[in-house]
Every structure is written in C-alpha cells, then in structure tokens.
C-alpha cells in the first residue's frame, strides 16, 4: 500500500532521524511509578527509549502545534488511533498541512506503519475501531437516564473539585487557540478563581467551543488531576451531532464543522 512501511518502532525512528526525514520523534517513554510519559527524541541514540504498549493511550496530537515543539523541526509522531484522529481533525481545520508530519501508526506490539500522507492515515482509520471506551459509554448512558435534578447534583458535585488548572484544555488536540476566552478579562467572561458558578461556566464554554469538533478521545478527562469525567460533556455533544447530522469527526481531512455550517431545513421543535 502506498506510503506504508512496517517494522519495529525503534528502528524506524532511528532511520528517520538518520536520513534527516524528520528532526524530531514525538512518542512515549518509560515514566515514573510504572507509567509512561511523552518523550521527545531528536538524536538517533535516544530512539532506544521509545516504547509502545497498552499504557500508551495519551493523545499526542496536541504537541504538534505547541511552539516549543514546532521549533524543533519536522516531527514523526507515534500515533495511536486517538492521535491519528486528532491529526486528521487538525488538518480538516487547516491547522496542519499534508506531508508536514509522519505518523508512526501503532496498534499494539511491534507492528508499526509509517504513514506519510493524510490520505494514508484516513485509510488506516477506516479500518480502525472508533467505539467509545466501555466505561465512558456506561457512564454516559447512566447520566442520560437520570432525572435533570440528579444530573445537576452529579455535575455540581464533580465540578466542585475543579481547580481551574486548564489541563483539560492543554491536553485537547483541538484547543489550539492562542488566546482562550477564559484568559480574556475585558470583559471577564469566566471568573478566574475556582467557584461553583465559574467552574460551570468554564465547562459549558469549553464544551460549546468543541461542539462538532471533539474527536471523542477522552484525553481531557484523563488529564484532569481531579478525576472529573469532563470529557463526557463534549462527547455527549459529539454523540448528539452524529445523530442529528450524521457526522463523525477526525476521519477525513475534508470533513466540515457542524457548528459553522447549517441546512436551511434543520429540524428543531423548540422555537416558537
């Protein structure tokens, strides 16, 4: 298949650096306490430290546009399914051009596919399983079945733990704005300190800004130090938008954003 090469992650990475095909590898390495962490490798020797196993779930796509990373040169990125969807969505939103990165697509084990073009990545994704994690699906169903009062109580209790660290935003591949509305203080849209009202407003805002764009990776929830299942908010909207408009995000570089398009005969039942 065009543009696909298979082989061992460390070898491919070393080879890419040696040939100067890329100047940086974004991947995973051993962290502390049995966990993995993102690893940025720019010399051939250090490619030995790259690894991929079932712990490597983090969506690395958000590193692709961070200034401190982009200044290091053209990257190859170790890409699980979430990361690939992030890349495709960034391309769909014109944040990333074709053939400016190389994806090292990995599912498990040693089997790495080198994908140089967005088209190759789309093809790879067309064969992938895009289902939500079982726990997420279960919690989503549970919340949907609750009464509105119970949902209010659930989220109020969860959001009370939010410390407004914005890790959820930093971790999201699609929160790439250089100035976020939470940082605007004229007017002050969202109170700076953590408070019940401000926390709720922050989460409404974040979710609305991701409506029709969220690729349902769950990274925001995983990044949250307070363990708030905050990813379920944008994911709930993604599910609704899929149902209403039939669109899945992060699978085609030509996909649109449902919140910046419309049909003249969009259906609703609530406008009088």
């Amino acid at each position: 298949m065009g543009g696909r090469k298979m082989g061992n992650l460390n070898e491919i990475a070393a080879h890419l650096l040696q040939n100067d095909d890329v100047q940086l590898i974004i991947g995973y390495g051993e962290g502390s306490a049995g966990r993995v962490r993102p690893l940025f490798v720019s010399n051939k020797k250090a490619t030995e430290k790259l690894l991929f196993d079932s712990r490597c779930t983090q969506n690395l796509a958000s590193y692709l546009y961070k200034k401190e990373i982009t200044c290091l040169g053209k990257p190859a990125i170790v890409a699980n399914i979430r990361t690939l969807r992030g890349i495709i969505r960034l391309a769909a939103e014109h944040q990333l051009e074709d053939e400016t990165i190389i994806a090292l697509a990995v599912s498990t084990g040693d089997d790495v596919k080198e994908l140089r073009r967005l088209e190759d990545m789309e093809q790879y994704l067309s064969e992938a399983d895009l289902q939500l994690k079982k726990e997420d699906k279960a919690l989503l169903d549970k919340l949907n079945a609750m009464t509105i009062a119970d949902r209010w109580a659930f989220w109020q209790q969860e959001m009370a733990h939010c410390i407004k660290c914005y890790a959820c935003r930093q971790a999201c591949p699609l929160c790439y704005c250089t100035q976020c509305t939470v940082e605007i203080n004229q007017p002050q849209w969202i109170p700076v300190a953590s408070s019940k009202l401000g926390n709720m407003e922050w989460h409404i805002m974040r979710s609305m800004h991701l409506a029709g764009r969220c690729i349902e990776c769950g990274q925001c929830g995983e990044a949250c130090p307070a363990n708030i299942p905050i990813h379920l908010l944008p994911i709930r909207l993604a599910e609704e938008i899929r149902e209403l408009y039939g669109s899945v995000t992060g699978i085609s570089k030509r996909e649109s954003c449902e919140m910046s398009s419309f049909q003249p005969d969009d259906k609703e039942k609530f406008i009088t």
Partner: protein
Amino acid sequence: MTNEFEPKIVAFVCNWCTYAGADLTGTSRIKYSPNVKIIRFPCTGRIDFMLLLKAFSNGADGVIVSGCHPNDCHYTSGNFHARRRWITFRVLLDFMGIDINRIVFAWVSAAEGAKWAEVVNSTVNKIKELGPYENYREIINEVWEEEKWEI
C-alpha cells in the same frame, strides 16, 4: 400589595426583526408584561451563548432569544447558524442538569407586534410557574469557605 414572584427576564433580540417587532407592539399600544429587559443585537448570529450565561449569573430567572424567521435574516444566514448553536446548547445544558425551560427561543418578525407580546407574556407566566431559579441562585451566592473561617 401582593408578594407574587416577579421574574426577571432578559430578551436577546436581533435589530432587524424582533426589535422592530417589539417596537410595533409599543406603537400598536399592545400591553405586555414589564418583566422583560430587551437587549438589541445586530443579528441572532451575534448572540453568543456566553451572554445567556451572563444573564443567568446576573440573576435572571428566564431568557428569551428571538430574531428573524428562517430565510428572513438581514445577513442571510445568521439565524441558521444560531439555530444550530441553540440546538446544541440546549442538549449541553440539559445534560448538565440546567433547566432548559427557562430559555425561550422564538422567531418574531417586524410585523409581528402581537406575537412579541404573546411570547413575553407566555414566558413570564411560565417562569412564574417555575418560580425563582433557586439552583442557579445558590451557586451565584456561594459563600467562600475562606469567608466562613473565623480567625
């Protein structure tokens, strides 16, 4: 004097249809509830959901959002965009446990002075039935833990 609850309603309307429609309500001398405070926008496409949140955080019990009928928007498609956003916004609020009955969406044209009065009156009645938005007031008036400390 009665102690009946008088809800505070904020209406976000577009300049070209609903605002003119509300004007017509007045010039036609149709009486309607004074509980509403009207804020004029160029178009429903400009009515950011954050503004609705600000109305609630400033103590509104209900909100009306209204503009030109589909195909009548002064800027051709502002209301089509707005409609999609409202659809999504309601889903999100409902999922977070916020009462979406407190936000009323309407199309009111410049010729529908009577409809405007009807929209406002029915909204005021509906919010009177629902009562003050206690859930929201509770979080607005949250007492800081620090303030509760005694030194």
